[in-house]
């Protein structure tokens, strides 16, 4: 048997099905890996040793009893801490929720439990998913496994780093403006944001309700397809949940892996490239396009003129919705309660003190911005206009999809920057998401797959965007590109990552 932690989820699933390995062995191997490297990486906020092993034992028992099991049963998974887990502390990376133990499960957690995947723990993130570097976590930075001095992306840096550092074969992320795709890009992993409404948001601690979407974080495109299918599908508890059945994503990934993309029109978005993108990022992108062409795809250029306004619209819509979604954190019913240091102890003053101390800088910044944008007199100019820009962005997508089956771009303009480098410049930090945000505004699905290394030897991501409900195209194109690139590299990109020092 290979090193269990380096196997893909699909390989582990096969080995479990064939009886070559037990879930307890697989789960224990990952718990051991976490113990060995997470001191340096800090991908996890909470590790569920006992619960994960209990699930693993149950899967092994069921398998030996000949019970019908989900293909991924027994393959462990890590869950971003923004996802509510019954009985397991959930903080969304915020001090304001320190020690909170939810009394219920998110729908996607219910599905994971139903399929019997051991949950290894909860992964670190920017506080309430606000950030692109995981430096805004209330519980310390997560480090990029490729270079521990660099950011793992954000907000889902913990999930991406956990997968990239072989601490988990699968992880759950959430993507409001790129929080799955951008961390995937800078850690050399795979991350997909499904069509808005295709994965239930019930139990996801809301950042921006009309933008949030949960999705898979993995090392291979096929693994992402498996996890996406598992968590997707209609949920009556989420009123924005689509009733459509989940497309055959695994089938699409397998089809793509054959390397044939004939008939597929690939649109390069003019506005998502050029100025502000590192040369190494653009070079890997161009090479990837050549591989797609070689696989039979037709590459066309498309223009999305309103994408220029997407970032501005996003930084109005997100803070506005977030300011309301985060109002509930007030120290009355759960989480932190801080009494004012002086003066009368009234509910109003306790709320303000709790929120003043419990929220970090970035959260306060965005709540202030969002409250401002919604407050009397500004609504039409800011929130109203931003929702109109959203319509224009959607129209750009519609026009582009008339010419192309999928759209492509670099996932992020740069490779992983150094921890602390952009912390004092919010606008520079926001620019990280310039290529990922349009998809969230329009609700379209997107995936980031590793495209190689930049001039600095750090991973570069290649983004594929598909029309609403056509998530299968992400997997077909993503898997085709992955196969072509890996045949050139002679293995996965992550194999080129430096070995992490193992703590004993």
């Amino acid at each position, binding site marked *: 048997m290979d090193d269990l932690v380096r196997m893909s989820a699909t390989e582990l699933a096969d080995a479990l099905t064939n009886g070559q390995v037990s879930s307890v062995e697989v789960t224990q191997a990952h718990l051991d890996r976490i113990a060995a490297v997470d001191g340096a990486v800090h991908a996890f906020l909470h590790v569920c040793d006992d619960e994960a092993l209990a699930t693993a034992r149950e899967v092994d028992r069921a398998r030996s009893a000949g019970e019908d099991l989900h293909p991924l049963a027994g393959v462990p998974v890590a869950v971003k801490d923004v*996802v*509510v887990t019954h009985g397991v502390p*959930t903080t*969304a990376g915020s001090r304001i*929720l320190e020690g*909170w133990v*939810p*009394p*219920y499960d*998110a729908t996607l957690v219910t599905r994971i439990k139903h399929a019997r995947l051991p949950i290894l723990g909860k992964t670190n993130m920017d506080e309430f998913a606000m950030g692109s570097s995981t430096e805004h976590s209330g519980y310390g930075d997560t480090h990029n496994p490729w270079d521990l001095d660099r950011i793992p992306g954000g907000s889902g840096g913990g999930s991406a780093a956990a997968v990239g550092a072989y601490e988990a074969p699968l992880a759950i992320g959430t993507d409001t403006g790129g929080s799955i795709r951008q961390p995937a890009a800078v850690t050399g992993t795979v991350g997909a944001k499904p069509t808005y409404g295709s994965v239930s*948001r*019930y*139990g*996801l*601690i*809301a950042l*921006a*309700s*009309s933008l949030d979407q949960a999705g898979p974080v993995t090392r291979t495109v096929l693994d992402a397809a498996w996890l996406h299918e598992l968590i997707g599908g209609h949920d*009556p*508890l*989420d*009123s*924005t949940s689509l009733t459509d059945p989940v497309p055959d994503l695994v089938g699409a990934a397998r089809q793509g892996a054959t390397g044939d993309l004939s008939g597929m029109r690939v649109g390069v978005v003019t506005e998502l490239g050029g100025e502000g993108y590192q040369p190494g990022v653009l070079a890997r992108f161009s090479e990837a396009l050549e591989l797609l062409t070689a696989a039979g795809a037709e590459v066309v250029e498309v223009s999305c003129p309103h994408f220029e306004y997407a970032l501005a619209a996003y930084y109005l819509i997100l803070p*506005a*919705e977030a*300011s*309301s979604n985060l*109002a*509930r*954190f*007030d120290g*009355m*019913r*759960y989480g932190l309660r801080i*009494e004012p240091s002086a003066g*009368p*102890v009234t*509910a*109003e003053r306790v*709320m303000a003190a709790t929120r003043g101390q419990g929220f970090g800088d970035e959260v306060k910044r965005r709540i202030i911005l969002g*409250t401002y944008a*919604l*407050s*009397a007199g500004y*609504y039409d100019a800011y*929130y109203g206009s931003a929702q109109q820009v959203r319509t224009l962005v959607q129209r750009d997508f519609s026009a582009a999809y008339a010419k192309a089956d999928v759209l492509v771009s670099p996932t992020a303009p740069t490779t992983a920057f150094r921890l602390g480098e952009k912390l004092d410049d919010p606008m520079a930090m926001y620019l990280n998401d310039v290529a990922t945000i349009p998809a969230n505004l329009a609700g379209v699905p997107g995936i980031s797959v590793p495209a190689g290394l930049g001039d600095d030897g750090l991973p570069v991501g290649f983004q594929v965007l598909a029309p609403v409900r056509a998530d299968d195209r992400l997997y077909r194109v993503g898997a085709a590109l992955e196969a072509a690139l890996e045949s050139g590299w002679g293995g996965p990109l992550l194999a080129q990552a430096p070995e992490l020092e193992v703590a004993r």
Partner: protein
Amino acid sequence: MSAATLVDYDDAVRRYDPVLGIEVHVELGTRTKMFDGAEQSFGAEPNTQITPVSLGLPGALPAVNGTAVEYAIRIGLALNCTIAPSCRFARKNYFYPDVPKNFQTSQYDEPIASEGWVDVELEDGTTFRVEIERAHMEEDAGKNVHIGGEGGRIHGAEYSLVDYNRAGVPLVEIVTKPIPGAGDRAPQVARAYVQTLRDMFRALGVSEARMERGNVRADVNVSLRADASAPLGTRTETKNVNSFRAVERAVRHEISRQAAVLDAGGTVVQETRHWHEDKGTTSPGRIKSDAEDYRYFPEPDLVPIVPDPAWVEQIRASLPELPAARRRRLATEWGYADAEMRDVVNAGAVELIEATVAGGVTPAAARKWWMGELARTAKDRETELESLPITPAQIGALQKLVDDGTLTDKLARQVLEGVLAGEGDPEHVVAARGLAVVSDDGPLLEAIDAALAAQPDIAAKIRSGNMGPVGAIIGAVMKATRGQADAARVRELVVQRVTEG
């Protein structure tokens, strides 16, 4: 200016024209809450009817109760409103411990129903039309119980206990347009309006509408102006006026109070005021600096409601007859004069008479029973008609006994007494008390002969053709038969006897 300064009400309405505006909240009687499946029922143990949604837990999402939407449409249609072809929920953002998300999910610029009216019947039998601006859906808040002494405002000593069972209970808020033209009847109009809505909610089956449980709550806006041609004056909003009587009193008080402010050359402050049931007065609420900046925006966790016109028409067709229309129809069917019908309504006898008539009694006889003997009994016993221990079916049976000659009116009243005393159905009381009319001529003739024999001088007069004193004989016979004789029959038999004689 002293807070207690008031202008005499009659004087106030002589010199000022009051304009009303009323907001009524009704809790819908659905099984579950507006946005989640938590059960809602009155009187449950604290915090036992809560889900992640009604507690506003992180990650929880709302889902609209379809039955609540149907109820809201019912209310809108009953208020002659237009049902919006499309409407949305919005978030009303404000911080308060009993609002678990720190925003209330409500409807803002897109209510489900708008532009309607309702006719309100006043005590004098006239109707007054109230224009409706809108009816919209929203959710209720939890309940706070304040703990801590009145005087002892020691640091940290006071606190509140919060129960979220009520949080998320479906509400429909009905907002009137400004109501001008009520004049000195403004307090009465306000009361009758709220009462009309209460009756309507019950008839529609959308709420138990029990005022004492807070199912129906009213906020009353009052403003004064010099006369009907003047622009609207500054209004105050008196919150949570939760009984019909209080609505009437609060309007009356605000008119007197505002008149005093204006008389003194002051200006009425636009504010929220609290109603004090014990003193019959209002006082200013807390001034909230951010009160007006609720930062409404469309609720992104919910999708628009686009009522299918066929569904709306189906609901319209299934609407029950509303109380006012029903009263008008019944008055016509029963042939009651307006004043008679008003008395029947005020006595709470509509349903009782309706059931009695359905049992085969004529409307006139039914009214005679319920508004006569029984109304007097209820008054004597200081209770409601419907609480008397007698049913419309028993009245039907009693009237039948009168109609077939078994009982005289007088006997029937005795039987009624027996029924009210718990002696059973009328037939049973007749048998037990031996009260049936003596219809066999034999015993009657015996009694007549005895009476004639006992009063020979009267007998002689009658025989001579002077029927004047026949009453004395009849009286004697009635006495002998303990009232169970039919007087008319006795008279016939007396005449027959003297003629034979």
